[in-house]
């Protein structure tokens, strides 16, 4: 990226890609004293060309690279791709497989949200206790994933036509136990974070994004819902088992960092409810339909599937040409949209240098998802 000109009265600071809080990206900020005048996001440090790689994989092989887009939330990402493949190839999915998919997606969402607010807390200062509590609680979910799929993070569990395996013996009880444990823990989080006056001081009124701006700049996920827009793909276009499940779309009006945090918080509560519902009401039956190992597509078919990942709406648009591989896969990644919002936030309100990491992690960026 060529660097735009610098005005004489500001100092340009380059954040990252080696910086404790920048993650895998570089952010150029123009600071005037402590006030940030301009943010320039220089992304692309983890660009791996997944869209091109997918053109060279068969439909089922493609699950592996696309899962690596968001490691903390692989279930939702893989579901987006698998649903697009199913739509393009015309594959039916049995009911029980849909419910299992929803269960794993919600577990992935909790996993990812834990990560998100752990980092947001970490950003408000060296406040590491809560951040590392989240890693402890993530282990509960990771153990469930491992029991179900055999892997902790990247579990290629969804395949076109269903899921790879049925729930193991006693898994539903373990889900219920995990839900009970997490409910208890989230009370601790709420006390340590939202009820902490200094934490509130750092987050309230910081990085305010109004409802109109959120829509105009194309925000998505908890960022959009934190600004009061109740858009959630799970409600708008119910996929998997979400049509049969009972949950609410969480919105907050303020649009600041605290609102985004609260949205994530309440979404976790909803996810726990969904997990319990699924553990109680999951229907029986087969978990997959027979699909050939190398399914051949019909020429000229397009399928756009949308799923609600933890970071927002993911769209996977598959174009086929009648071969064994997709002709083109377009991935509409949520973080890329939110990164643009982040870039514009310095113009929308007063941003201080110290607020920058908080704002950055309140949009929950996942650069691998952003760069693809």
């Amino acid at each position: 990226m060529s660097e735009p000109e610098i005005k004489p009265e500001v100092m340009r600071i380059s954040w990252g890609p080696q910086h404790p809080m920048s993650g895998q990206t570089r952010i150029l900020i123009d600071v005037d004293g402590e006030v940030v005048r301009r943010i320039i996001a220089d992304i692309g440090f983890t660009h791996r060309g997944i869209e091109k790689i997918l053109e060279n994989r068969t439909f089922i092989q493609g699950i592996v690279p696309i899962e690596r887009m968001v490691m903390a939330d692989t279930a939702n990402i893989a579901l987006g791709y698998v649903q697009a493949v199913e739509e393009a190839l015309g594959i039916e999915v049995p009911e029980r497989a849909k419910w299992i998919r929803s269960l794993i997606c919600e577990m992935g969402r909790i996993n990812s949200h834990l990560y998100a607010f752990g980092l947001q807390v970490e950003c408000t200062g060296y406040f590491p206790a809560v951040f590392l509590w989240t890693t402890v609680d993530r282990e509960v979910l990771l153990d469930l994933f491992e029991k179900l799929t055999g892997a902790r993070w990247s579990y290629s569990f969804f395949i076109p036509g269903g899921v790879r395996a049925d729930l193991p013996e006693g898994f539903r009880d373990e889900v219920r136990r995990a839900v009970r444990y997490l409910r208890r823990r989230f009370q601790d989080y709420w006390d340590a974070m939202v009820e902490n006056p200094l934490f509130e001081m750092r987050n309230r009124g910081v990085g305010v994004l109004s409802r109109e701006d959120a829509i105009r700049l194309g925000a998505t996920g908890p960022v959009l819902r934190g600004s009061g827009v109740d858009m959630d793909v799970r409600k708008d276009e119910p996929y998997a088992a979400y049509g049969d499940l009972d949950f609410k779309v969480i919105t907050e009006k303020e649009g600041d960092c605290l609102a985004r945090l609260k949205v994530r918080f309440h979404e976790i509560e909803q996810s726990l409810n969904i997990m319990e519902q699924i553990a109680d009401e999951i229907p029986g039956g087969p978990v997959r339909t027979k699909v050939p190992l190398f399914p051949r597509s019909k020429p000229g078919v397009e399928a756009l599937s949308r799923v609600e990942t933890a970071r927002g709406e993911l769209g996977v648009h598959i174009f086929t040409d009648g071969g064994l591989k997709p002709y083109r896969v377009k991935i509409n990644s949520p973080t890329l949209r939110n990164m643009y919002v982040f870039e514009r936030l310095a113009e929308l309100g007063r941003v201080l240098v110290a607020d920058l990491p908080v704002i950055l992690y309140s949009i929950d960026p996942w650069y691998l998802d952003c760069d693809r």
Partner: protein
Amino acid sequence: MQARSEEELVEELKREHSELLHDAIVHRSKRVSVIAKRERVLELARILRDQYGFTQPVSAGAVDYIKEGRMQMIYYLMNPKTRFMLMLRVDLPRDDPRMPSITEIWDAMNFHEREAWEMFGINFEGHPNLTHLLLPPDWRGGYPLRKDFRGEGIRP
């Protein structure tokens, strides 16, 4: 004049703005495509945003149809009221991939157009900052997502 259903939207667009677009299609529920004329895409975009409520930009990307000698730029747009997803498609000839930048209507398309520029070589006229987004700034390897890209990434 908010359209109630996908078919009504398509019919209305075809009836009232036929000079701006080639075609309009309903794929399935909540998925609508509009194929715009390249020269007049800005007018159509403004109408879509102001009159039809497609205020939320989602994403944009292109497809390279090498056999037909064209590329198609696709803008994914969202109506936050009716929750329709509209794909605004623009066909570009492969030997002259150039179109007006849509950032003046939806400035959030900035990143996506930069990505399309570096991946497909589509030249967006009037884009504020058409520089490399994902690839390194000194990238000289060609346009990776074009079908005739011959760098790494193609199995021999």
